[in-house]
């Protein structure tokens, strides 16, 4: 399997580490659940532990540790292993304006 790093070009997948689903958002207590401790607990549990076992297109984090050491977000089909896109994760490259920790 080869992955096209937006910085380095196409490389063998052995240069990359897989983190998993890029969709879960860290709960923002002030906005999401300012009043209820139970809601906070549920949201944190979901964020830390619950993952969908997707058969199909999935957004996921990959780390190019064997290359440019950037965090990437890939859209990959988990059934066919086809990569539809690979882009820099927010915060990859200090100059990019995106917020880290999406």
């Amino acid at each position, binding site marked *: 399997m080869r992955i096209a790093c937006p*910085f*380095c*070009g196409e*490389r*063998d997948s*052995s*240069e990359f580490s897989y983190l998993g689903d890029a969709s879960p958002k860290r709960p923002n207590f002030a906005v999401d659940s300012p009043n209820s401790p139970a809601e906070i607990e549920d949201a944190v549990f979901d964020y830390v532990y619950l993952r969908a076992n997707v058969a199909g297109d999935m957004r996921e984090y990959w780390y190019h*540790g*064997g*290359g*440019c*050491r*950037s965090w990437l977000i890939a859209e990959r089909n988990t059934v066919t292993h086809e990569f539809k896109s690979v882009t*820099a994760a927010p915060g*990859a*490259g*200090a*100059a*990019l*304006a995106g917020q880290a920790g999406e």
Partner: protein
Amino acid sequence: MPDFTWETQSPLRKALVVGRHGAGTGAAGVTLREVRDIALVQVMARRGQAAATAKAAKKLFGVEPPTSPKAVTAKTATLIWSGADQFLAFAPHSGDEFYAKLADTFAGIASLSDQSDGRCALHISGPRARDAMAKFCALDLHDTVFPVGAAASTAIDHTNASVWRSADEAGEAVYNLLVFTSFSDSLWHMIADAALEYGLDAGHVSAVQ
């Protein structure tokens, strides 16, 4: 207070056996050199400071650092792309002078890390250099894909390496490798093994002319 004097030792002092090894007796197909006496600094732009870092580098070196996997040669240093908004500045060793100059230039806009003794620099050249490298490096090193000035951060033998291509006086390809010092002994053996069937000429050179 006792005075300490630090003596730099080559990480290859055991692995590197100077001379002609492997197949044949004539000219070696692969020439492998450790490059000693280097100064190497990792420069990483801080958030939002990439443009300022490039500008400061241009003022110091006379060239802008590469923004894609390339190596650019300036008068006093070679700047090698090593990731988004970061590069390695490679120069002949000059005491603490090189680092001090960079620390001054990039104060407040980029983070520096002195890698002069953290990395080991190698040169691979010769008519069969690419055949030997094909055994351990997954990069496409064809002239049209990886010409002089091309660079890459990649994994070689399970460890990270910076690779870039330059040319010798005769215009022949020289592949420059920067590998972690602590892995260089093992990598040297692996590269030598890959080169033996083409005839290997092993040795070392100094970056200081």
